[in-house]
């Protein structure tokens, strides 16, 4: 080897910072992402694969100097698009009716309360299934704590449209669930 030397200008400090941020983001957003993807109809394995891919993409995005702004909606958008690729057809979304055996029904509830809660859940299930796809998407992202602006970024629709869609969907559910 000759005595020539070269320096690698690796952004190590930035990389370390990004890694910490990425870890924090992973802890914060893994479960919401999984819940959203399961709501889109992905199986547990598919959802976990998509989440892993999304975080890997985020890591590459940050390592390449990508913007950290709106990273939450960025992650959801990547996951959403990959989920769409997983699903060959929209018909795969939401399988059979759900049975809330391990759900909201508290263990301390009386049998009567449990039956009422189950009936309420089935009404909600039916009402949710009757929603249009964009309405359901908006509600799922809203349930994960995304703002209307972020939901618009994920779904590629204007913020005002998100507001109208959320309002329409919530009113439909309230009407159908008789609350």
């Amino acid at each position, binding site marked *: 080897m000759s005595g020539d030397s070269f320096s690698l200008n690796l952004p190590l400090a930035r990389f370390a910072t990004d890694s910490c941020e990425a870890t924090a983001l992973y802890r914060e957003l893994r*479960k919401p992402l*999984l*819940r*959203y993807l*399961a*709501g889109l109809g*992905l*199986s*547990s*394995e598919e*959802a976990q694969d998509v989440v892993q891919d999304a975080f890997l993409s985020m890591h590459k995005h940050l390592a390449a100097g990508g913007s950290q702004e709106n990273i939450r909606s960025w992650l959801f958008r990547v996951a959403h698009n990959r989920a769409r690729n997983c699903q060959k057809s929209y018909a795969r979304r*939401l399988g059979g009716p*759900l049975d*809330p055996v*391990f*759900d*909201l029904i508290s263990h301390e509830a009386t049998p009567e309360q449990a039956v009422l809660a189950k009936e*309420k*859940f089935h009404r*909600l*299930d039916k009402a*949710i299934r009757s929603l249009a796809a964009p309405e359901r998407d908006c*509600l*799922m992202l*809203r*349930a*994960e704590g995304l*703002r*209307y602006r972020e939901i618009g970024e994920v779904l590629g629709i204007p913020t005002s449209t998100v*507001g109208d869609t*959320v*309002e329409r969907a*919530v*009113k439909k*559910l*309230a009407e159908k*669930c008789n*609350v």
Partner: protein
Amino acid sequence: MCDFSGRLIAWMDCELEANEAAVLGRHVRACAECRERVAAYEDVSRGFAAYCDVVLETAMVTKIHRKLPRWVPVVAGAAAVAAVVLVLALLPRSVKPIPVVSRVAEARPPIAPKTATNTPNPVQRRHAAAHRKTQTANWAVAEPAIQIAIPGDAMFPPGAVPEGVNFVANLSLADGSVQGLRLQP
């Protein structure tokens, strides 16, 4: 219907401008109808969030069930039964106990150590054992037989057998299985 009812959900989600949110907040406190609607929308929102949890839990449980499809235990059981039947069918009808004859103790009372030059190595011993085979007329040997030379050190703890002593194991075979084993010093 109240004029403000169209902005209630955006107000609940804190998506209104500050001044507009303040106006709507004051209205909701004063309007029973809007309060009722807000309560209903909040109830639906909580229900929807819980529904998302159930969807995720269902997906996880489905994963656990999917790990082991129902047909797997059935097929595995059938395969195990078939294997047992096959083994039983291939086994000989009667299995005789393997006679193990060891004459080590009676053959060699305390032996004085021999010099290394007189001790045959395992290869030489194998030839000697082949020769000795012809002398064991009283042992009903089933043909064919296999002879294996085994160094004494490999069978007994150090010091139990004089150095260099070997044993010959005669294995008699019949029907493809071992019918007899005899050890000779």
